[in-house]
């Protein structure tokens, strides 16, 4: 194994990890603002993938148009789902369990709706860009660099939104102290709605970028959901920056793990890492104890 191949593995890990980060950050945002564990998050990813597939492959819309449309659709779907289910449950006693249960039901429902609508065929989308970048023995296709670029852009935009916009302040304020936010005039229920939509859209971005290299099937949400869970546990449940770092870390750990053992043990490594982290630092590797 040469150094350059090792570096290539790390870069590959970071690229895939950046997608885990997007999915995980959606889970983290939802948990951070409304303390809901969204088991249907994988389905946002899956539906995002199908939307892009429908637009790009079936309708022939160029990718740069298709992806924003898919994002918008995912946003609306996420917001709708929040409004008709979570919104009501949050006002009930014992909502922590009933929200988990309802998202579980939604997950199965959406999975099988996709199955009815799109069939069980494994779908994928052609590369958005072609060509390969090669330097010092490292080969990386443009498509993968594009993924990394989009991930960086998305994270930058999200960071900007959270740090520097009215909406972002409202989201951060609501997640830190719901009452204090209400007192300064932030309507929590609308923020919840928007946060759910944004989280769904983050899943859809990941799906759109992964569509050319990962399969889209009605079941493709589940493995990515599990990855998202590992990410948020690593980063500290509810922390956006934690999820980003957790995602990248998981990507690299998996890449190195495949190198050292074999692909079949990759997910075991991920879950074992997660359980170890929960055992030692339940608040996550990067979160703070409180």
């Amino acid at each position: 194994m040469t150094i350059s191949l090792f570096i290539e593995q790390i870069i590959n890990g970071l690229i895939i990890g950046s997608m885990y980060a997007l999915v995980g950050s959606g889970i983290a945002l939802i948990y951070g603002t409304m303390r809901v564990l969204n088991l249907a998050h994988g389905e946002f990813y899956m539906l995002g993938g199908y939307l892009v597939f429908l637009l790009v492959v079936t309708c022939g819309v160029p990718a740069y148009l298709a992806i924003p449309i898919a994002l918008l659709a995912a946003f609306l779907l996420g917001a709708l789902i929040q409004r008709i289910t979570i919104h009501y449950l949050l006002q009930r006693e014992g909502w922590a369990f009933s929200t988990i249960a309802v998202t579980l039901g939604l997950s199965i429902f959406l999975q099988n709706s996709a199955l009815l609508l799109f069939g069980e065929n494994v779908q994928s989308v052609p590369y958005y860009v072609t060509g390969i970048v090669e330097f010092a023995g490292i080969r990386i296709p443009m498509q993968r660099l594009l993924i990394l670029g989009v991930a960086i852009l998305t994270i930058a935009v999200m960071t900007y939104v959270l740090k520097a916009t009215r909406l972002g302040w409202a989201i951060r304020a609501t997640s830190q102290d719901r009452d204090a936010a209400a007192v300064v005039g932030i309507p929590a229920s609308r923020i919840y709605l928007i946060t759910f939509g944004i989280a769904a859209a983050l899943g859809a971005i990941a799906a759109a970028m992964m569509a050319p290299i990962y399969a889209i099937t009605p079941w493709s949400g589940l493995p990515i959901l599990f990855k998202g869970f590992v990410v948020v546990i690593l980063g500290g449940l509810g922390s956006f920056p934690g999820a980003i770092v957790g995602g990248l870390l998981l990507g690299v750990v998996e890449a190195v793990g495949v190198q050292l053992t074999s692909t079949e043990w990759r997910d075991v490594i991920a879950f074992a890492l997660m359980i170890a982290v929960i055992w030692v630092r339940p608040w996550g590797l990067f979160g703070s104890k409180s």
Partner: protein
Amino acid sequence: MAEAPMLQVENLNVLYGDFQILWDVSMTVGAKEVVAVLGPNGSGKSTVLKAIMGLTPVRSGKIIFEGEDLTKVPTHEMVARGISMVLERRRLFGAMTVRENILLGAYHRSVNKDIASRLEWVESLFPILAERRDQIAGRMSGGEQQMVAIARSLMSRPRLLLMDEPYLGLAPKIVSQIAGIIQRINQEGISVVFNEQNVHLSFGVSHRGYLLESGRMMLTGTGEEMIHSDVIRRVYLGV
């Protein structure tokens, strides 16, 4: 009274589940008045303020502000009606900077204009906050945090400011500083309702007071009237 007071609270009953906190509580606040809500702990002082702000659901009773019934108005609409609140123990957005915390006070669309002049006004009241603007709010001292919390609540230029235990947990020197700030705020034409356990401290800045015991209104009057009342000694000291 010639005209209706600014704020009228009528026969408020508040329950947490089955646990009744307030029993038929009524009070009024006039324009440009500072009113203290007194009582030992557990008497329901905080709940009165929270109920006015809509943070605690009201079982029965009415809250009328400037002639409008606010009983059913959600908390996040209160700033638009001209009421703002400083929560107990500051409740800052601890991971955000001082500046972010203060600017969030002008979040609501109805007050989200002339931000610069609002900020200038608030920072003129609290010069120290202008210096500390980029500091993370959660890492400041209690007194500084209280100033941030008050500054935040003033950004909406309220006509009525509710302050829940503004002195709680602060060193005596800081307490007198905060008392001075309450007077400054009042001088700006803002009515203030705050609660405090210590009778002396309360009347240092307030025009009038209300005394609560176990969720019931026991007494009202000016500081002078109340301090010499036996009721207050009985409520506080049991004698």
